[in-house]
C-alpha cells in the first residue's frame, strides 16, 4: 500500500479570466521511505498540487488516499489527525514564522494543538528537536528575525518534524538560500529522512538539486504530469521533449553554451492549448499533437510519459 496516492486529481479555481486549471488530472504515488521530486516551471501547478495533497486547498475532483484511507472529503476534525502525519516546509521560512513569538513558543504550539504531552514533556520534545536540526539550545528564547535564512529553514524543518510525520511536502525549501547554505540544508534533510524514516515530496525548479536529492522524479507541465521515472532513468534517458528542454536549459559549467532550448512562455492555465498541452512550444509537434491529448503511458517498467512522439526520439 502506498503512503499517499492521488488519482485524477483536479484543482480548479474560478477567476474573472475564466476557469484556472491549476492541477488538471494528476495521478501520483509516493511509497513509504521514498523521495519523489516534482519539477516544472513556475505556474505549472506544482505548489498547488502539493497543497492539495495536504488538503490545504480542496480538490475539485479526484481522490487522495493516505495510508489506504480516503482523505478527499475528510471533515476538519479527522483531517487534523491526518495532518500530524503530513507536514510541509516552505520556500520562505520567515513568512511562515510568527515574528512576535519565540522559537520555543512557535515549536510548542503544534504540540499543544495535538495534545502531545504535558508542559515539561513538550519542553523536552522542543529542546531535543532543536538539537537535532543543528540549532543552538538558546534558540528557544530568541525571535525569528534573529536568525539567518539557513537557520530559519532549520526552524521550519524542526516544526515539520515535531509530530513525527510520515510525509513532508517540501516546497522549494532551498531555493531562497545561498549555495553554501543550500548544501547544509539538503544534508540535514537527508539525515532527518534516515532518522525519522520519512518520505518527501520535493517540489523544486532546480533540476540539479532534484537529481542529487530524489529517488524518483515527476515532471509537470500546465497541470499534468508529463513524465515520471526513477532518478537514474530520467537523467540517462529522458523521453518527453519538455523534460529534455528543461535539462538543456540548465547552464552547466561542463559543456559549452547552447541556444535557448525552448521559446515562449508557459501558456496560461486558464487557456490550456488543445491536444497535447505542450504542442505550442514543442520542437517535435505534429498534426496529431495539435488535436489529440497524449495518454500517460508506460514505455518501460517504472517509466511513464505523455507524448505521441516519445518513442521516435533518437
Amino acid at each position, binding site marked *: 500500500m502506498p503512503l499517499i496516492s492521488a488519482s485524477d486529481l483536479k484543482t480548479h479555481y474560478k477567476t474573472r479570466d475564466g476557469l484556472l486549471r491549476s492541477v488538471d488530472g494528476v495521478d501520483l504515488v509516493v511509497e513509504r521511505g521514498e523521495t519523489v521530486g516534482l519539477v516544472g516551471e513556475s505556474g505549472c501547478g506544482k505548489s498547488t498540487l502539493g497543497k492539495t495533497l495536504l488538503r490545504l486547498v480542496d480538490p475539485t475532483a479526484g481522490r487522495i488516499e493516505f495510508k489506504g484511507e480516503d482523505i478527499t472529503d475528510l471533515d476538519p476534525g479527522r483531517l487534523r489527525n491526518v495532518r500530524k502525519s503530513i507536514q510541509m516546509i516552505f520556500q520562505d521560512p520567515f513568512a511562515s514564522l510568527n515574528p512576535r513569538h519565540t522559537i520555543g513558543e512557535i515549536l510548542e504550539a503544534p504540540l499543544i494543538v495535538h495534545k502531545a504531552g504535558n508542559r515539561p514533556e513538550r519542553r523536552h520534545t522542543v529542546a531535543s528537536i532543536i538539537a537535532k536540526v543543528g540549532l543552538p539550545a538558546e534558540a528557544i528564547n530568541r525571535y525569528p528575525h534573529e536568525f539567518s535564512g*539557513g537557520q530559519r529553514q532549520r526552524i521550519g524543518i524542526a516544526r515539520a518534524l515535531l509530530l513525527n510525520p510520515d510525509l513532508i511536502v517540501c516546497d522549494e525549501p532551498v531555493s531562497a538560500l545561498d549555495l*553554501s547554505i543550500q548544501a547544509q540544508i539538503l544534508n540535514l534533510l537527508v539525515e532527518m529522512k534516515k532518522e525519522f524514516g520519512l518520505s518527501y515530496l520535493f517540489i523544486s525548479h532546480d533540476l540539479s538539486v532534484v537529481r542529487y536529492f530524489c529517488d524518483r522524479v515527476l515532471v509537470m507541465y500546465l497541470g499534468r504530469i508529463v513524465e515520471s521515472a526513477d532518478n*537514474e532513468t530520467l537523467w540517462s534517458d529522458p523521453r518527453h521533449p519538455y523534460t529534455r528542454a528543461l535539462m538543456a*536549459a540548465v547552464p552547466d559549467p*561542463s559543456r559549452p553554451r547552447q541556444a535557448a532550448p525552448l521559446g515562449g512562455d508557459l501558456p496560461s492555465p486558464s487557456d490550456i492549448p488543445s491536444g497535447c498541452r505542450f504542442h505550442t512550444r514543442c520542437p517535435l509537434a505534429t498534426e496529431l499533437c495539435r488535436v489529440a491529448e497524449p495518454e500517460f503511458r508506460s514505455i518501460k517498467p517504472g517509466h511513464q510519459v505523455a507524448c505521441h512522439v516519445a518513442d521516435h526520439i533518437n
Partner: protein
Amino acid sequence: MAPLLQVENLTIGFPRAEPVRDLSFEMGAGETLAIVGESGSGKSLTALALMQLLPRAAQVTSGRIAFNGRDLLTLDAREMRQLRGRDIAMIFQEPMTSLNPVMSIGRQIGEVLKVHEKLSGRAARERAIELLRLVRIPAAEKRVDDYPHQLSGGMRQRVMIAMAVACRPKLLIADEPTTALDVTIQAQVLDLLDTLRRELQMAVVLITHDLGVVAQWADRVVVMYAGRKVEQALPGDLFNDPLHPYTRGLLSASPRLKNDFHYLSGRLTEIPGSIVSAAGETGCPFRPRCRQARASCSHQVPPLIVQTPDRLVACPFTSPLKAVPDAAHLSL
C-alpha cells in the same frame, strides 16, 4: 587603450559597517565581467556605486570609479544624471518592482528617450516599438500599450532590457537579471543580453550567484566574499582549478546535473557557518568558515596574489584541486 571601466580600491561604508572593502577591477569595451558571491558579499552595493545610486546611509569612503577616463565620484548630480541611462544603464532582479505599474511600457521606454535624446512623444513611441522588437517581444506594436501586470516575468525583464539599451549604453549593469526566472526563460534572456552586447558593443557587468551562468556567459569572473575580492579568473580556469578555499567550497557544495552524485552515495560538502561570521573579523574574512585556516590568517587580510594578470587570489595557502578530498566527486 584605456579600459572602459576602472574601479580602484573602492570602499563603501555604512555608519557601522564596511560592506565593500578595497575592491579593484577593470573591464574593456564589449566585455562581460561576472561578479559572483552570496548575499552579503557586497556585489549589489558595488553595482549601485557604479550607478551612483547608493542608499542614503551608504557612501563611498575611498577609491575611484573611472568610466571612460572620468572619475564618477567627482561628478555632480546633474552630470551623473546625464550619464546614467545614457552611457551606463542597469537592470534588476525583479522587473515588477522597477517598472511603474500605472504607466504603459511604451511610455516608460519612451521617457528615457525624451530625456536623453529629446525625442517628441510620437518619435519616442516609434522608437519604443522598435526597441520592443529588438528585445524579441512578439506583436510589439500592440504590446507597447500594455501595462507591466499584463506581461509575464520574462517579458517584463525584456522590457527592462529595452529601456536599459534605449540609448545604446557602453556599460550595462545586470544585477541578478534572471534569478527570478525559470531556467527556460533564463536561457532566453541571457541569449538576448549576449546578442545585444555584441550588436551594441556594450560591456556587461553580470552580477549573479549562479556558477553555471558564470561559466557559460562571462569572459572574466570576480569572486567576492564579505565585501572583498577573493579571486579573479577566466571562467575555464576558475572551474578547472579554483584557488581560493571559498571558491573551492562553493564548487564542491553545488549539486550538478552532469554527474551522478546522489544522496545515497554521499553528503554534499558543506561550507560551515554563514557569511555573518565575517563581521568584526580582523584577518581573512573567510577564516571563520575555512577548513585550512591557520593562526596567521587572523593577523591580517591576505593581500591579492597576482599569478597572471587574469589570475588573482587572496589566499597564501592555495593548493591544486586534487589535494582537496572533498572535491573528488566533481566532474568538472
